[in-house]
């Protein structure tokens, strides 16, 4: 993999260490590009991808109470990890591509699976099982999330998943540079003919 890419006569893109750039781009959107000195694109990826992810978190948040009146819905509920039968979050495989901002979901899922109280009021925590008697009994169930958040839960899921998928493009750009636009062969030939005449 080349460490430099010449995009045009006036511009050479220095990729530095592409593997490190790719890892940083995954960790925080735009950080890989910032490491490479491509500051404008770093800012653009950071704002677009994290903005989309944050908006998805906000959409899937509520201070309203659960349907049983105990506990609250909490924040960032569209992003959680679960591998239980009937609630396998395949979408998390896309959300985790955003990197560090999506990792709290793994910590919360681990705590809930070991019957430990989830942190920060259930931020990115999975919904509790219907029969739950441990410290997480005031957490909402999946039914609570759909009933209280309604379509905002699905919208939040869409926004955060798309943010993750977009970061995959950004990671590729950090590792390999921009996908160069291929000019039309006919136009290139016409230019050569013009030069000859």
């Amino acid at each position, binding site marked *: 993999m080349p460490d430099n890419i010449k995009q045009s006569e006036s511009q050479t893109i220095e990729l530095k260490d592409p593997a490190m750039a790719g890892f940083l781009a995954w960790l925080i959107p735009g950080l890989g590009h910032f490491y490479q000195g491509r500051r404008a694109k770093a800012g653009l990826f950071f704002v677009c991808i994290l903005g*989309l992810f944050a908006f998805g978190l906000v959409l899937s948040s509520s201070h309203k109470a659960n349907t049983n009146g105990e506990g609250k819905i909490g924040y960032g509920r569209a992003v959680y990890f679960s591998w239980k039968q009937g609630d396998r979050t395949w979408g998390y495989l896309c959300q985790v591509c955003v990197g560090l901002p999506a990792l709290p979901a793994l910590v919360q899922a681990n705590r809930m699976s070991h019957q430990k109280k989830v942190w920060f009021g259930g931020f990115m925590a999975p919904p509790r099982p219907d029969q739950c008697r441990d410290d997480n009994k005031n957490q909402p169930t999946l039914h609570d999330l759909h009933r209280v958040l309604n379509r905002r839960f699905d919208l939040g899921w869409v926004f955060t998943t798309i943010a993750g998928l*977009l970061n995959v493009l950004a990671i590729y*750009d950090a590792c390999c540079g*921009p996908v160069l636009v291929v000019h039309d062969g006919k136009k290139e030939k016409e230019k050569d003919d013009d030069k000859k005449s």
Partner: protein
Amino acid sequence: MFNMLLADVSSILRLDLWYALPIIAAVSLVYAATRHEDMRSIWAHAGRVALWIAGFMFAVFVLLELLDWLSGR
């Protein structure tokens, strides 16, 4: 009449379709940014992609409305 107009405007503003705008903007900008390095080219390409996406969505909307009209005849 003014109340009816206000009601129409408020119902349009409550459409879930507005949620598509930030998605279209972000997708267009990120896609264009993976094709260019110069910011001016990125913005120009992003504008074209956004118009393509919005146009495609509008075409699907027209098709669905047509099918609805045909099925209701």
